[in-house]
């Protein structure tokens, strides 16, 4: 039984990590914005023409994706290059449009945290500074659980989606950093 649960854990972690797009200029931003609401398989399964992607992005923006025009332009170029039904994708390459940040910035970006939270401004959810001001260091475990399981009510009625694919270790790293942002 222990073996089975370890196996299941590995399978579930693997599938969460596998939910990625082809690496290339703009792939990180695209992943971060799209992952806020849906799995990336919706992109992988269906290459579209550039015009269809433009319509699709316009539709997602109307539905509420937090992204500005400059970000939309990057995402459109990326999708029309790597997921285009009219031409094959180039081989994967480095995401030259993604500025390599500190390990914590990478963690925040890779898990779509930055879609809704920033250091000092309210985007969709509270800023990290607001969170740090509200919770004492002793609340770390509570916050780790909130990040992984999702939550609602502490900052209004908008729920925070759960992040079951985020490991406990990574969640702890994020929380330790957030609580230092006073």
């Amino acid at each position: 039984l222990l073996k089975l649960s370890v196996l299941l854990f590995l399978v579930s972690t693997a599938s969460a990590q596998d939910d990625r797009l082809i690496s290339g200029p703009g792939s990180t931003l695209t992943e971060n914005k799209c992952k806020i609401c849906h799995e990336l398989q919706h992109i992988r399964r269906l290459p579209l023409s550039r015009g269809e992607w433009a319509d699709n992005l316009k539709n997602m923006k109307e539905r509420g994706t937090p992204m500005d025009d400059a970000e939309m332009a990057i995402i459109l170029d990326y999708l029309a290059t790597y997921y285009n039904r009219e031409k094959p994708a180039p081989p994967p390459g480095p995401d030259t449009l993604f500025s390599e940040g500190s390990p914590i910035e990478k963690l925040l970006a890779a898990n779509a945290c930055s879609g809704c939270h920033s250091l000092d401004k309210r985007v969709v959810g509270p800023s990290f500074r607001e969170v740090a001001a509200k919770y004492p260091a002793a609340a770390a475990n509570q916050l780790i659980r909130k990040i992984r399981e999702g939550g609602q009510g502490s900052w209004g009625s908008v729920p925070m989606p759960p992040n079951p694919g985020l490991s406990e270790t990574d969640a702890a790293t994020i929380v330790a950093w957030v609580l230092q942002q006073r």
Partner: protein
Amino acid sequence: MDEKRRQLMQGMAAAGALAASGIREAGAQAAVPGTIDTAEIKKLKVPAMEYHSERPLTGSVPAHAHDFDVTPNDRMFIRNNLLIPAVDIDKHRLTIRGLVDQERSWSVYELAKAFTPVSVQGMLECAGSGRTNFHPKASGTPWGATGGMGCPKWGGVRLADVLKAAGLKPGAAHVAGQGVDPGMVATAAPVIRSIPMAKAMDDNTLIAWAMNDQPLPWIHGYPLRLVVPGWVGSASTKWLATLTVLDAPFKGTYMTGSYITPRHAIEPGHKMPADVVSTEAWPVKSMITSPAPNAKAKAGAPITVRGRAWVGQGQIERVEISSDEGKTWQRAQLAPAGDPRFGRYAWRTFTYEHKPSGPGYVTFLARAWDDRGNAQPAVSTWNPLGYFWNGWHRVGVVVEA
């Protein structure tokens, strides 16, 4: 037990629409704030349910798991744009506003008491049902060949009665439903769809609280939803809290950016043109629900082909089966239509007996006709969002010696 609950139970028990114990249980669970976990939703579904996506949760059963005259709750498809809210039935209210003589509001209990409860069997089908049949591939939830529909029995009150009670002002032309389902982000647009007054006044259009004599399951809109049978599923707003009477179709992304098709057919693979129409009633459609694909039969023994046929406006006139790839068609037996006041948009069961001439493989095709002369096409008109697939359904059977 307080007075309002007693009244509710009396009212609903009289209608046979809702098990009193069921609503108590569900109500107790609804005290949990926030949203319902998808794992809880899946527990209430049959193992045959095929999921295409976890976020948002989408799933349906294949045709051969749909072999029921009335779709059971645990086989009804799942499709949702936002999160699944945990609603407290004791606090939930329905408000009607806009072009009405008087803005009014009811609790679920008051609604059940104020209006005549009715029970209607009716089709709900996602606009993109069967989407993966389209080539080239179309954008959206990848419903399988027959995925994304069902025909349960709904219990509630007629939307028409509620509209009449509020009193329509001159110019009232559309009714928009809005639910309390929250989005993933604060900027998420609410899912608002409106239907024209004629459909809102149809005696099969309901504000429902029951599904097959049970309280609505969480995922199907507990505690209150619109049921606009025969039309694309998105018209049937779940977790319904607000009805707004308008002088024109609602303008919002779920009316103008989604659930639209080109007014005139376009070259497959091309983007949406400027001239579009909003999706409304489903065209004539059918599926073979038995036998299952590649089932085994014996040469000489008859094979009973059974299925379901439906249309979003008008009536099913006949269903035909072909066992020679569409060269010839034979008429299937069609179950009689029920009382149109309580099932005008219900699917109808058809059966057909085929005697295989010898061992081999036989492929059955089903084609339904409506009473306006429309038949299912072999292949439906391509459109960018992959809506309204109603091509012939095919099921093959292995005939053993």
